[in-house]
C-alpha cells in the first residue's frame, strides 16, 4: 500500500518569494508523479508532473525536483504571487497500479501581497 507524506501542512510566503513543498513516497513500480493545485470549491487541477528519468522539470515559475534514490520529490514556486494561494497536493502511483494515485495530505499556501 502506497503512502505519501507531504510537508509542510501550511506555508506563508511574501509576494516574490520562493515556496517549497516536499513529498516522500514508498515503493512504486510506476513512474509518474503529479502535483495538483486546488482552489476552494474546485476540483484539483493538474499543475505539473514528472517522470523520474529526469531529476528536474520546469514549467514557467513551477519546478519539480525528483530524487529517486531517496524517494522524494518537491515543488518549487518561484516569484510566488497572491494568485498562487491555494492548496497543493502531491501524488504518487500505487505499487500495483499506475492509474491509482495516492495523494499527500495537502499544503495550504498563502502568498501575502
Amino acid at each position, binding site marked *: 500500500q502506497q503512502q*505519501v507524506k*507531504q510537508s509542510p501542512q501550511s506555508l506563508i510566503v511574501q509576494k516574490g518569494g520562493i515556496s517549497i513543498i516536499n513529498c516522500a513516497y514508498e515503493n512504486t513500480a*510506476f*513512474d*509518474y508523479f*503529479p502535483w*495538483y493545485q486546488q482552489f476552494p*470549491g*474546485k*476540483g*484539483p*487541477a*493538474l499543475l505539473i*508532473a514528472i517522470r523520474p528519468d529526469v531529476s528536474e522539470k520546469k514549467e514557467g515559475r513551477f519546478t519539480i525536483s525528483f530524487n529517486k534514490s531517496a524517494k522524494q520529490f518537491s515543488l518549487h514556486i518561484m516569484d510566488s504571487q497572491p494568485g498562487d494561494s491555494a492548496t497543493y*497536493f502531491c*501524488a504518487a*502511483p*500505487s505499487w500495483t*497500479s*499506475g*492509474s*491509482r*494515485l*495516492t*495523494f*499527500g*495530505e*495537502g499544503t495550504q499556501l498563502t502568498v501575502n501581497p
Partner: protein
Amino acid sequence: DAGVTQSPTHLIKTRGQQVTLRCSPISGHKSVSWYQQVLGQGPQFIFQYYEKEERGRGNFPDRFSARQFPNYSSELNVNALLLGDSALYLCASSLSGFNQPQHFGDGTRLSIL
C-alpha cells in the same frame, strides 16, 4: 474543449438513502477514476474503470459501486448512506489510465443529514 463534467454539483441526502453521481470524461479519454475527498484531506481512490471494466478498487465498503458506459461516462452509486460519507466526490479522466495524466472535474459535494 470541455473538461471533466460532474453532476449534480451539490446533493443533500439523509442517512440510509442511496445516491447516484455522474461523470462525463474529457472527449477521447477512456479511463475514469473516482475519488473521495474529505474536508482538509487529500483525495482517496475509490474506483478506476477503463474500457467499461473495473481496473482498480480502493479500500471502500461494498456500499460503493460504479460502472462505465459505452460512451465512457460513468456513475458512482453509494447505498445505505452514512454520516461519514459526507465528502466531495471527484471524477478524473485520462487517456488510458496507465501512467497518464489524470484530469479532475469540480466534484459533487455530498452532504448527509
